[in-house]
């Protein structure tokens, strides 16, 4: 099996700490070089935090695991300079179709609005995603990626984290200011610290079968079947991935024997029943999984910060696992940078816990509801499920009830203390706490996208009047750009004035910025380094923006 991909073997290198007579201390150590740990490490290195990433293995993910990467995750990876390779290699899709028994009952488009840089989703095998992240990580100075370094002990006190690491050359101790734990759902570090992730185990099993086949007549869309003729009484999911590899998920029921069901002689007839006897395919991978929805009570424990599956776990329906883990890193790293530089109080890191616990709670809620719909556990819940599906074919209202997975959308941090609540009236969805939407624009006549020019630091988005920027507003923008702790670079929409320090003149070529942000002359948005909106006003006032900035870094 695995004809299309050979896992790389990354070189082990001995730790410099092995021969050090004095304790070595790093600002940041990340445990786990999966999608979340690598995202965190790259983001940290780009922010100028010297970072060590430790992984107990020496390769990328093996087999068929995460598949769907959502628009928001791609936007984060764009900020880190590595999304384009993933989009080029992956399969772009926006449409999902839902089938019940022998017919399609409805379809949905996850990106009904045009003029966005990134699609709703790409499908890409997890090993490719990780390999692109490793490529990016190895380009960066200040990122020390260590393979075959297994963390076997973690101790912390008020000022320090001490990590014990086992390697082929023996054990070493290393210290850090902060430790990010992204070592997966079974998180050995979580266990070492005596912490728990608690929740609900679902009593069902699913078979994953990856097959290689030519099937160009299948459009690139997500297909979900409830009770299809080829797999009666159960559900099935189909996704196209790179290299003509197709991912099939078959619901098996709780009583299925996982060892038996993953044998090719059991899998191949199921695949043939689905694809037809005439279809040539090669079986690339099969495994059987069960799933859980659970999380830790808190993602921050002193100087140890949990991210990704280590902190929270969801069922696969909705693609909310890796996507939310990438957003954990996105939320955390800019805060760590401000704290490490003494520009923000250490309590800013508590907002990581609050904001991402809110996101995890939403993801778990959605994922649990999807799973309850997909795998009904009583005669009555099955009757309601089937009634919903039968009605959905004919009645629009019932389509809203069909739940084959509520696909990953970013959380809006509605209640975060880092946002400044609206004082002025705005239309649209760009309220404080929201991740910024995207829009096409030009800079110096070059077409580009808003989100490629936001992030890593605080940004402003200012809508100029036809005559340009009034003198008082210009003075405020320039003062904000020179702030020592939180310099603000402002994109100025609709002004030709170039070369003004701290500002970038952008042209709203299709009027999407104005429309999506409800921009009027004088409107100013303040955006966090993770592109979430911190505050917005109809007119610019330096004290107001400074107070919002202070609030956004936990000083408010």
């Amino acid at each position, binding site marked *: 099996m695995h004809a299309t991909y050979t896992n790389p073997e990354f070189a082990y290198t001995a730790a410099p700490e092995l021969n050090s007579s004095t304790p070595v201390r790093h600002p940041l150590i990340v445990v786990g070089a999966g999608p979340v740990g690598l995202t965190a490490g790259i983001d940290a290195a780009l922010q100028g935090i010297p970072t060590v990433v430790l992984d107990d293995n020496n390769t990328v993910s093996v087999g068929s695991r995460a598949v769907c990467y959502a628009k928001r995750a791609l936007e984060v990876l764009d900020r880190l300079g590595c999304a384009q390779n993933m989009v080029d290699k992956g399969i772009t899709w926006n449409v999902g179709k839902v089938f019940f028994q022998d017919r399609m009952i409805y379809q949905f488009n996850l990106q009904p609005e045009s003029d966005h840089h990134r699609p709703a989703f790409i499908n890409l095998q997890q090993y490719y995603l990780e390999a692109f992240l490793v490529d990016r990580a190895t380009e960066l100075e200040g990122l020390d990626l260590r393979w075959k370094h297994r963390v076997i002990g973690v101790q912390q006190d008020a000022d320090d984290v001490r990590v014990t690491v086992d390697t082929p050359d023996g054990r070493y101790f290393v210290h850090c200011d902060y430790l990010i734990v992204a070592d997966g759902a079974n998180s050995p570090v979580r266990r070492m610290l005596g912490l728990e992730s*608690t*929740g*609900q*185990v679902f009593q069902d099993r699913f078979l994953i079968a990856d097959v290689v086949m030519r099937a160009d007549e299948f459009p690139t869309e997500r297909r979900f079947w409830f009770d299809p003729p080829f797999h009666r009484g159960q559900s099935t999911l189909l996704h196209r991935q790179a290299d003509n590899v197709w991912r099939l998920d078959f619901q098996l029921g709780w009583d299925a024997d996982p060892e038996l069901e993953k044998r090719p002689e059991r899998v191949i007839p199921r695949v043939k029943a689905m694809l037809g006897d005439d279809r040539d395919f090669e079986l690339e991978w099969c495994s059987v999984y069960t799933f859980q929805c659970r999380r830790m009570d808190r993602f921050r424990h002193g100087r140890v910060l949990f991210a990704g599956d280590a902190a929270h776990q969801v069922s696969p329906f909705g693609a909310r696992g890796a996507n939310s883990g990438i957003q954990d890193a996105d939320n955390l790293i800019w805060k760590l940078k401000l704290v490490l530089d003494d520009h923000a109080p250490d309590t800013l890191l508590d907002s990581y816990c609050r904001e991402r616990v809110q996101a995890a*709670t*939403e993801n778990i809620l959605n994922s649990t509801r999807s799973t309850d719909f997909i795998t009904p556990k009583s005669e009555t819940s099955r*009757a309601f499920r089937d*009634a919903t599906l039968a009605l959905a074919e004919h009645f629009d209202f019932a389509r809203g009830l069909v739940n084959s997975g509520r696909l990953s959308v970013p959380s809006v941090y509605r209640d975060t203390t880092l946002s400044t609540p609206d004082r002025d009236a705005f239309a649209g969805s760009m309220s404080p706490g929201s991740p910024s939407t995207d829009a096409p624009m030009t800079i110096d006549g070059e077409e580009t996208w808003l989100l490629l020019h936001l992030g890593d630091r605080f940004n402003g988005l200012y809508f100029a009047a036809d005559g340009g920027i009034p003198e008082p507003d210009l003075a405020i923008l320039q003062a904000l750009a020179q702030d020592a702790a939180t310099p603000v670079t402002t994109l100025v929409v609709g002004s030709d004035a170039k070369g003004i320090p701290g500002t970038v003149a952008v042209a709203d070529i299709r009027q999407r910025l104005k429309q999506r942000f409800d921009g009027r002359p004088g409107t100013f948005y303040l955006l966090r380094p993770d592109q979430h909106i911190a505050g917005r006003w109809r007119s610019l006032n330096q004290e107001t923006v400074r107070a919002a900035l202070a609030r956004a870094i936990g000083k408010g």
Partner: protein
Amino acid sequence: MHEAKHLKSEARLAAPDDFYAALMNMHRDLDESQSRLVNAKLILLLANHIGDHGVLTEAMAIARDGIGDAPGRPSESPDASPQHRKGPRS
């Protein structure tokens, strides 16, 4: 018994016997599982027609009252009853 606040509980059916007969007739010649499906479709159609979450949850509470143990709090919003506290059900 729950006191109805949103739900109209005074008599509103002009011909109650006709309605009841139609309801019974809807199930004629169906087995238990077919009837269960038809009931489910009927509830979904009526729920959408009513379209008022307060009325619907009140009706559910009255329907359930006194039957079995009281149900757990439904998870209506992300901040409501955290699912993660349910504990394993295996």
